Each structure stands twice: as C-alpha cells, then as structure tokens.
C-alpha cells in the first residue's frame, strides 16, 4: 500500500496545502467532520476541535507547535462508547495515531468511522517553553521544523524514530518531496477510497520519501540508543531512581494526561492504598520516616507495569509534570525494553494483539527459574562446617 501516493501542490507551504485539501474533502462530503488542532481565542495554545463548519479551519493547524492534549484522548472521548454515524477525519501526530490504535485494542476507542490522518512529524515544543511566549514559540517551531532540527523539541521528540507514517489511513509525506509539493499516501482501503473520492490518482512514486524517512530513522535510532544508555546509567538502582523522583509531589498529572492511562479511578488513588493510621505509623517506625503521601515510587513503577507495553513515547507526561521530572524519558526507556521482551511495538498495527492478552505455550523461558536437582543448600553446608569445627 505504500508503493504509490499522490502529489499535492503546496506552493504556500504544508499547512495551507493540507488545510485546503481538508476543506475540499469537507465540501465534497468525503468527511462529515474533522478533528483538528485549532488555535484558541487568546492565541496562547491549541485545542482539538471537532468541526463541520469550514470557517473554523481559519485558525487550524495540522502541525501545531505544541501538544497540550494528546490527540488519542480526544479520539477516545469521541468514540469510547461506540462508533459514531458521522465520518470523522482526525488530523494527528504519528504518536497520537499510535496511541489511538492502542486505545482501540484496549476498547477505549472505535475507529470504524474515523480516519487517522498523519503528517511527517518534527516533534513539538515543550509546553512550558511555548507558554512563556507563544508568538516567539510558534516562530521558533516554524523555523526549526523547516530544517528538521529537533533541538528545541520535547526531549523524547528529539529521540523519536516513529516520526513518519504509522498505521494511519492517510499520511502526508513532507520528507523527500519535490519543492512546493507534498505526498498524500494511503495506508488502508479506507484511505484509498477517500483518495478515489477526491479524484487523486495514485501515480506518484514514493521512493524518495521512503529513502529520506529511512535515513532519518537511522539517525534517530542511534540518538535514541545513546540517550537511553546515558539515562539508564543515571537512574540506576534505588539511589539514582529516588533522586530522579525526589521532587515528585504525587500530583499524578503524568497519569492524567497519558492517553494510555484510561482508568476512571486509578489503582493508586483507590481504596486499596488508603490505610488506617496504624499502617502508616508502623511503616514510618520501621524506616525511620515515611514520605507523605506514601507510595510515590510504587505509583511510578506500578503505573509503568500497567501501561509501558502500550506507551508510545509521546512525552505529554513530561510536559505536564510541575516538577520538571524527566518522566517521559524514563518511561520511554522502560517501554522500549519491555516491548522488546515481547517483540511488540505499541501502535504498530491493530492486528498485533496486546502482549498481556496473548501468550504462547513455548516462550519466555528466561523468566522461569530452572530446577535441576534436589537442593541441599547452605543449611547442609553449615551443618557440615559445624561437624568439622567440633
């Protein structure tokens, strides 16, 4: 399906080309509505708008400088209770599309009547950087993304190697396209039908795009490998880890903004961890003190055990942390390693079953503790020593 695409003229830049294309699709009733980031009235942020009125596209952007809300959350809100009757096109970043795919597997979204449309992604700015001066931030983003310079972007955007076409229905390829044009690439039969309805023949070769994407992917993979090696050394063991989380105030922002964390009531806020005072005093007595509220480390490691298999390393958690803890960096490291254990890549395909739902009879033997023979162990050895000493 990735063999051919269409060429979309983009003399005035990617943004206006894509918006124009979407306007056309709306007016031709190829879609009933769009879900797209739109600048808020005060001009200091972007919010996802579900719209059918093309006039609202005036302040819309397919590639805004920030990701205040992870798009998969918006998609999930819309479709968690089922498929709508309207055909909606959601214009999202690749990581948002991947999270939407994970949420669909987790039955928190339904994609039958929703088209995922993605764009080659240079990353987004950290939200706090942008909020300091939104106008300057937007300019900085525009300039850097033009050159594919990821230096001003979120730390996990800087090491992202999933910046191009995920399993979306349509993808706008901006890498490797001729000057003043972009590629429109179908990723599914649903996507192909849209291009047919829009009269876009699939006659453009995608070799240049594919080559450029591959080249960038390799650079990014190496950056990721290096960053993760450095990070792992820095957070190793109780000392390293508790240093990183030493300023955590248990606000749980990271959990709340995470697209994959969908539980209405998080286990770590439930009655299971609300204990009588004797419990807290006993623990405080045993350790000399008890951080309050307790269970900070349990929250982070426990939350990791609940969601890293579906973590798409989008970085929204780190943006939301008021104490500037590198949560996304830590979690993207944990996610890569855990997903690797199961040969799983979050958001790669709807067909990949969730690792904790599927299993093989013959796998993961490295986790089993081998039992070779009857254990005599230290006890016997000590007895023998006693006999010897006597």
């Amino acid at each position, binding site marked *: 399906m990735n063999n051919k695409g269409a060429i979309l003229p983009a003399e005035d830049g990617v943004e206006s080309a894509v918006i124009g294309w979407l306007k056309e699709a709306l007016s031709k009733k190829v879609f009933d509505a769009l879900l797209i980031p739109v600048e808020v009235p005060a001009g200091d942020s972007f919010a996802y708008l579900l719209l059918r009125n093309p006039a609202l596209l005036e302040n819309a952007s397919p590639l805004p400088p920030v990701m205040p809300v992870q798009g998969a959350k918006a998609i999930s809100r819309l479709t968690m209770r089922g498929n709508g009757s309207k055909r909606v096109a959601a214009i999202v970043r690749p990581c948002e599309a991947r999270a939407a795919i994970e949420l669909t597997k987790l039955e928190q979204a339904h994609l039958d009547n929703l088209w995922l449309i993605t764009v080659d992604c240079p990353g987004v700015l950290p939200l706090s950087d942008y909020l300091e001066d939104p106008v300057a931030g937007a300019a900085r983003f525009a300039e850097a993304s033009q050159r594919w310079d990821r230096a001003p972007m979120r730390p996990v955007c800087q090491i992202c190697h999933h910046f191009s076409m995920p399993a979306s229905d349509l993808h706008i390829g901006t890498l490797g396209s001729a000057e003043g044009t972009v590629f429109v690439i179908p990723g599914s039969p649903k996507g192909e039908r849209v291009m047919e309805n829009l009269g876009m023949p699939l006659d453009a070769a995608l070799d240049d795009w594919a080559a450029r994407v591959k080249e960038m992917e390799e650079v990014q993979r190496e950056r990721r490998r290096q960053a993760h090696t450095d990070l792992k050394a820095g*957070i*190793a063991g109780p000392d390293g880890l508790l240093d990183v989380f030493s300023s955590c105030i248990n606000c749980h922002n990271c959990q709340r903004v995470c697209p994959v964390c969908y539980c209405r009531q998080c286990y770590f806020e439930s009655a299971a961890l609300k204990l009588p005072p004797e419990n807290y005093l006993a623990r405080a007595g045993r350790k*000399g003190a008890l951080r309050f509220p307790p269970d900070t480390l349990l929250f982070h490691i*426990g939350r990791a055990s609940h969601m890293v*298999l579906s973590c798409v390393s989008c970085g929204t958690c780190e943006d939301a942390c008021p104490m500037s803890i590198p949560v996304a960096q830590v979690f993207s490291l944990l996610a890569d*390693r*855990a997903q690797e254990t199961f040969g799983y890549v979050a958001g790669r395909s709807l067909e990949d079953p969730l690792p904790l739902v599927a299993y093989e009879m013959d*796998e993961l033997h490295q986790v089993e503790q081998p*039992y070779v023979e009857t254990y005599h162990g*230290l006890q016997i050895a000590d007895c023998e020593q006693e006999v010897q000493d006597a």
Partner: protein
Amino acid sequence: MSDKQEFEPRIIYILCSWCGSGGGETAAAHHLHYPENVRPYRVNCTGALPTVHIIRPLIEGADGVAISGCHPGDCHYNDGNFRARRRVALVKSILDTLDLEPERVWFRYVAHGEGRRFVDTATEFNDHIKKLGPNPLKTRSDT
C-alpha cells in the same frame, strides 16, 4: 556464627491455590521443612496476580518475592500461568532496566505432588536472598 546468619530475609512466597499451595501441603505430609521466614501468600491463580503485588512488597519490606503456580498446561483455569509468566517477564524487565535487582523475583512451577520441589524452592530462594543481602529499597523512607 557468621554475619550472613544475622540477616534473616523477609520473603513472600506467592502460591496459587491449586498446585502451589498443594505443593506445600504435600511437603507437610512428608514432614519436609522449609525456613520459617518464608511467608506463603495465597492467590487463587498466579494468573490473577497483579503486577503491583510483586512490586509493592519489594518496596515496603520484602527482600525477595517468589511465585509458584501450576506447570504449563496444568493450570486449573487453563492459561492463568501463561499470563502470569508474561506479567513476571514485564515486572522483571522494568526492574532490570532500573537496576533494581530483578533476581529478587523468582518464578518457578511447583505441582501439587511436588513437596520436595516446594521446600527446595523456598530454601534455595532463602539462601539466594541471604547472599544478595537485604533489599536496599526497604530502608528508604522516601519511596
């Protein structure tokens, strides 16, 4: 005697209600002994064991967590032990990435009639944890 004998590990031995606990009962029937500081913790099936129940003891005071359930193919609920194996793999991956001694978590199958294997696991794990020493996480008050 030696220093290592002063450290008595606090160990949680998670057992399923069928084979795991059964192994314990068979051991008792044969008058086999295992260290008193190994505390059994019974779950209905290892497949029902949440990942948090492996992590929480390691933070709050346990030096080691061992998990025993039915052999593959023998799970009373058909595939609980396969799911458990995946969850244990997930927890071990996280602990390993964070350098938090995943070797403090053991996963070994013990059948209903395997009394010897049950006490061997408890004893071997106890000795293993004695060698590793106390869990550094359990004395941290800032967890």
